[in-house]
């Protein structure tokens, strides 16, 4: 599986086929682990990192789950390919931008990804489309158990699994759910939601995790604490809150349709119009407008677009995807023009070869 073949598929988090997938984009569970006999990544020398990377790569290749993984050396990738992986949510922004030996192993379904030498030696991530935290947790448990048999994780009887940053120590687990909440944003209830989430020690972040902005009305809800509770309790803690948020969002959408039909319809139609006819458009604006249109489709205000199409566009209009799709590197201005052209072609639908097939 080379990176080029990945461009043909849409990736897991935008597949749009899991439970509650009109609001929940993806559910993700991440485990942070370190090997016991090397310093943490931040303190490790260049040689240490190369040795850690080789050690982990060789050991992972010996376990059943490891044999089904595609291995990518991020350290030697071109920048555009690294950006591509970030957009797919297969590696984090830090992993792409860091220096030194680092790599990632990905499974064919793009559900499991193992990052080597990010902030910790090993970060196991499992992502499922829609609301499926339990499924993601069961899958990642299997991966963790298999790798633990061949890799000595740094562990302390009191502190649990040891991590570079004390905010991850203990279970090392980060449970997160990505939600699309346009109605709550429009009705200005989103801040209230954040405050109440913060009270029950859940963190809210933007599309690409820590330090990112909430573009396109996508929000990631995740646990903040990792020590003192079991992994199941933390999974439940996040999982219990999601139906409540879904309920809020649905009621806000109903409210919008009932009370301000004209206004919402106008906003959605304008967004649709711009997407269909703009000559140059930025990625950020595209995401905002697609978010509106997505809500419009779900509210039944736009009839001739499918949700799966929107999901395709959400991923393919991102910078690296766009460039890989067109097979050419573009600078920012050209990208904006190309993006607008891609959108126009997609919505017109009758240009030969304009619509690339969706797997």
């Amino acid at each position, binding site marked *: 599986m080379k990176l080029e073949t990945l461009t043909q598929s849409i990736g897991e988090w935008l597949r749009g086929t899991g439970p509650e997938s009109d609001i929940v984009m993806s559910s993700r569970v991440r485990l942070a682990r370190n090997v016991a*006999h090397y310093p943490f990544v931040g303190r490790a020398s260049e040689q240490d990192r190369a040795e850690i990377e080789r050690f982990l790569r060789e050991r992972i290749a010996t376990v059943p789950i490891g044999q089904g993984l595609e291995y990518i050396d991020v350290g030697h990738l071109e920048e555009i390919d690294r950006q591509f992986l970030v957009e797919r949510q297969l590696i984090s922004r830090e992993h792409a931008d860091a220096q030194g030996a680092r790599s990632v192993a990905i499974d064919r379904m793009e559900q499991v990804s193992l990052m080597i030498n990010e902030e910790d030696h090993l970060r196991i991530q499992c992502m499922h489309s829609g609301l499926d935290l339990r499924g993601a947790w069961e899958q990642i448990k299997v991966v963790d158990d298999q790798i633990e048999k061949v890799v000595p994780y740094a562990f302390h009887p009191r502190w649990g*699994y040891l991590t570079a940053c004390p905010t991850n120590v203990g279970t090392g687990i980060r449970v997160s759910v990505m939600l699309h909440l346009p109605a709550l944003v429009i009705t200005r209830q989103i801040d209230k939601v954040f405050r109440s989430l913060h009270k029950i020690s859940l963190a*809210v972040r933007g599309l690409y995790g820590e330090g990112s902005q909430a573009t396109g009305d996508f929000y990631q809800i995740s646990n903040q604490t990792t020590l003192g509770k079991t992994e199941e309790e933390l999974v439940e803690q996040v999982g219990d809150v999601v139906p409540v948020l879904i309920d809020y969002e649905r009621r806000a959408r109903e409210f919008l349709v009932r009370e301000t039909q004209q206004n919402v319809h106008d906003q959605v139609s304008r967004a649709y119009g711009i997407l269909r006819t703009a000559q140059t458009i930025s990625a950020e604006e595209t995401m905002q407008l697609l978010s509106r249109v997505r809500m419009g489709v779900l509210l039944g205000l736009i009839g001739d677009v499918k949700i799966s199409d929107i999901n395709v566009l959400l991923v393919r209009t991102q910078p690296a995807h766009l460039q890989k799709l067109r097979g050419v590197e573009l600078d920012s201005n050209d990208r904006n023009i190309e993006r607008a052209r891609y959108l126009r072609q997609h919505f017109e639908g009758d240009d030969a070869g304009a619509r690339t097939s969706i797997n």
Partner: protein
Amino acid sequence: MQQYTPVAGPKRAAARFGCARRAGEKYRCNAGLEIQGELPSRTRYHWKGVRLSFTLLRLNRPILECVWYRMKCQQCDKPAVFHITELESGAVRELHLCEDHARNYLNQSELNQSEGPDAGGGEESEEGSPAAGDLPGPLGVGQTAGELAMLDQRACDMCGITFFEFRNQGRLGCPHDYVQFENELEPLIGNIHGGTEHAGRRPSRAAAEAGKQPNEQQSTQPQAELPTQAELPVGTDELTRVIGMRREMKEAIACEDYEKARENRDAIRALEERWSLEER
């Protein structure tokens, strides 16, 4: 004297994120600097040419694209890394000092205050939080500057990171740090997580029963007799000692003490074999 050179910037940066800077809020920028109180949003700052973003801590999302420009020490020309807010009666004084001058300043004020009765309120405060005696860093424990300075010098036996380095970068150096600095980390970890005992999964090592407490506090000679493979403890601090041994080995080679280097290498091999790191 102006410590920083503001570059006029757009107010819309604050409006764009829908949340203007507020007094009493805590912000952290991605270089690790924490600020409490009003973030000047009409000005833009640069810090070593790096564009920083400020995150409103309670919401955990960036709210301001703001950069900090050339914060210089008030007493010399080096960059300022300590930002101290003195709450004196009626007045608030802000100090921006480099490391050395900050240390001097804090030691000085500590000397001044040690004369009167130590009612606990005598420590200088930072970032507007009164009577906590916190220097920049997440400790949250009332400590005098002198105590903190001594603590900062302590280093991990294995990887060599000092506590000062940890406080500045927020990341630890190696797994052994959790043993070396256990007492100091306890309040910090308690603050972050609300609990200090791991309750979740454990590695299923050979013959390790659940709840068995291994002797991870041992600091005896690394050449002590090692038990057999079947008795691997759940905690891996024994294996983490390899980090220190490797460091000693390098130093021994640099000093041309090949005898010691060989001993270290053999000890490392023995440990690695016991934990089955060698190819089976």
